[in-house]
């Protein structure tokens, strides 16, 4: 709880720092403040505590996810120092919005009341709508922001309607009470409760971009400023899955049959659409958007396995996925600058010739996303499939493996571009020391977690 309060205060402090004309202090102060909230979060490790009439429940699960998201946000903030260098206006506000979004994710990982889940999702979403439109004079950015806002509000409305229906049936917002209420029906749920639960699941599925609620994600990922795209692909996805697991874990497990069926269909579609959609992309950000959808499919498989270690697998998967995604976005920005603002995959052409060390780190991260050993992406996928097969979910597991193999193709499409010779000479790629350090740290993290640390105990 102290970490939550501190982070909110940090956001307000950063907002006030906007009055000073010195932009370069924003990133160190935000990152340093987040280190403090990291320490404050870790102090509660091992204690299970409830706050404010059981509105939130802070346990090891929520602390582990919070710490993972804080680490990722710190990495993004360090990248932001370079990214926002040329931007003149509203830089402090953008930092503050990201910090406020982070506080929303804290609520999403630690709620035990549907009201808090709703508030968490909204506190995360509203800053994201604004951040997606951060480039005020770019039509693409405006389009992304508007699309995300309209579709996100629609999903929120459905979600809220679901909460209202569940409250109407069970007369409570408190998840353990809803669970006991559901248990008394022995699988024959009243329609009102069932529709309510389905609507709640739809609302959360929108946030994690699970098919068939994924349509916003490629457009928004493409139009939003790259830093915000990185934030969406990593922190928001982690938070969404933490909320999803917590909702099912403390609220609904064992799942009502109808909801489970719906979720299986969603998993199947997400794996299919994510991987097949990515095959046809030539824009790198869209490619990563579809790759994010495909990874959502694997994560949903982990959630649906309904095992005690599902939470730890989810944490491992989201963390290493985020760790591999951030350096790719950094490298993408560097390549984009070197090729006059193009966003195609072609901009990676000749990267190996020009800066071979960056090319090698890019390949490591792409391999991790594709799931090739010895990177951690392989271990993450292996654990998900291990969990699913252990539970006797054979067909979907085989389907997921086939889809993962298809996935290798489009990641290697990028790798092929890296090794292809580039005809004409272009402008030199410039790498600041901080960006180089970030790329190296993340990539070594990806390798180290893949080789030495195969799971994160919660």
């Amino acid at each position, binding site marked *: 709880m102290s970490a939550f309060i501190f982070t909110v205060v940090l956001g307000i402090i950063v907002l006030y720092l906007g009055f000073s004309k010195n932009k370069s202090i924003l990133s160190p102060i935000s990152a340093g403040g987040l280190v403090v909230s990291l320490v404050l979060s870790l102090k509660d490790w091992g204690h299970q505590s409830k706050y404010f009439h059981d509105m939130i429940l802070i346990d090891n699960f929520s602390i582990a996810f919070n710490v993972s998201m804080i680490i990722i946000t710190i990495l993004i903030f360090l990248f932001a120092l370079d990214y926002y260098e040329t931007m003149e206006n509203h830089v402090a506000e953008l930092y503050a919005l990201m910090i406020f979004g982070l506080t929303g994710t804290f609520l999403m990982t630690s709620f035990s009341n549907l009201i808090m889940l709703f508030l968490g999702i909204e*506190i995360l979403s509203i800053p994201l709508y604004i951040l997606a439109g951060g480039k005020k004079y770019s039509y693409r950015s405006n389009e992304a922001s508007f699309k995300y806002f309209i579709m996100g509000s629609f999903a929120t409305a459905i979600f809220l309607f679901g909460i209202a229906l569940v409250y109407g049936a069970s007369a409570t917002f408190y998840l353990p009470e809803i669970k006991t209420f559901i248990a008394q029906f022995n699988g024959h749920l009243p329609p009102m409760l069932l*529709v309510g639960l389905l609507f709640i699941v739809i609302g959360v599925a929108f946030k994690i971009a699970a098919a068939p609620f994924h349509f916003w994600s490629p457009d928004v990922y493409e139009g939003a400023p790259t830093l915000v795209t990185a934030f969406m692909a990593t922190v928001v996805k982690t938070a969404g899955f933490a909320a999803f697991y917590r909702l099912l874990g403390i609220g609904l497990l064992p799942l009502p049959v109808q909801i489970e069926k719906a979720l299986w269909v969603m998993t199947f579609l997400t794996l299919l659409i994510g991987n097949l959609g990515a095959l046809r992309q030539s824009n790198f950000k869209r490619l990563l958007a579809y790759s994010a959808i495909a990874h959502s499919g694997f994560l949903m498989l982990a959630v649906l396995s309904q095992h005690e270690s599902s939470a730890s697998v989810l944490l491992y998967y989201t963390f290493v996925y985020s760790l591999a995604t951030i350096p790719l976005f950094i490298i993408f920005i560097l390549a984009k600058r070197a090729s006059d603002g193009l966003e195609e995959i072609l901009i990676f052409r000749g990267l190996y010739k020009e800066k071979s060390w960056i090319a090698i780190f890019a390949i490591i991260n792409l391999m991790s996303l594709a799931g090739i050993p010895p990177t951690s992406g392989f271990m993450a996928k292996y654990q998900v499939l291990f969990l699913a097969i252990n539970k006797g979910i054979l067909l979907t597991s085989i389907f997921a493996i086939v889809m993962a193999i298809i996935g290798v193709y489009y990641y290697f499409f990028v790798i092929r571009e890296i090794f292809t010779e580039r005809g004409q000479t272009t402008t030199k790629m410039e790498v600041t020391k901080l960006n180089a350090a970030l790329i190296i740290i993340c990539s070594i993290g990806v390798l180290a977690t893949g080789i030495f640390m195969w799971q994160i105990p919660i």
Partner: protein
Amino acid sequence: MVFLFYLLSAVMVISGLFVVFSRSPINSVLSLIVCFIAMAGHYILLNSQFLAVVHLIVYTGAIMVLFLFVIMLLNLNRATIPQKTSMTRVAAVVAGGLFFLVMVAATRLTFEIHPRYPFSSKIGLVSEVGKALFHEFLLPFEVSSVLFISAMIGAMIFGKKDKESLPQPPPKEGA
């Protein structure tokens, strides 16, 4: 009481039909305001004064006035409904009919709803709402301030005119 209920319901239904059928957007919005006021009357009949007042202030006061402003500023008062092809008409009828069917089926199933707790006539009183808000729901009430501050920052970012980078006017057609 029963007479009032039927009166308010009739007003709501008629004004609701006006919202859908009137050609001019201004008339639509005005009928919607009437509909909302009648709904506030329903809330008072159910003894929830707080909800009624909030409904009047937020919906009829703020949101509908905003609607009116938008319509007047965009000069939408002319009935400019684009011509629809027969294909879209058929599609709309089929989609609407299917939705209606699903809704009827759903209501048939859920027709009997047994309340879990007996109705308490005190539940909507201002003091009761205040007690719930500042006791059990204190945290959501306070945390929503983070939500509002982000929304305000967003309004400021989008609304403020920047000095250095003025927007490029879109290229005029035919120029």
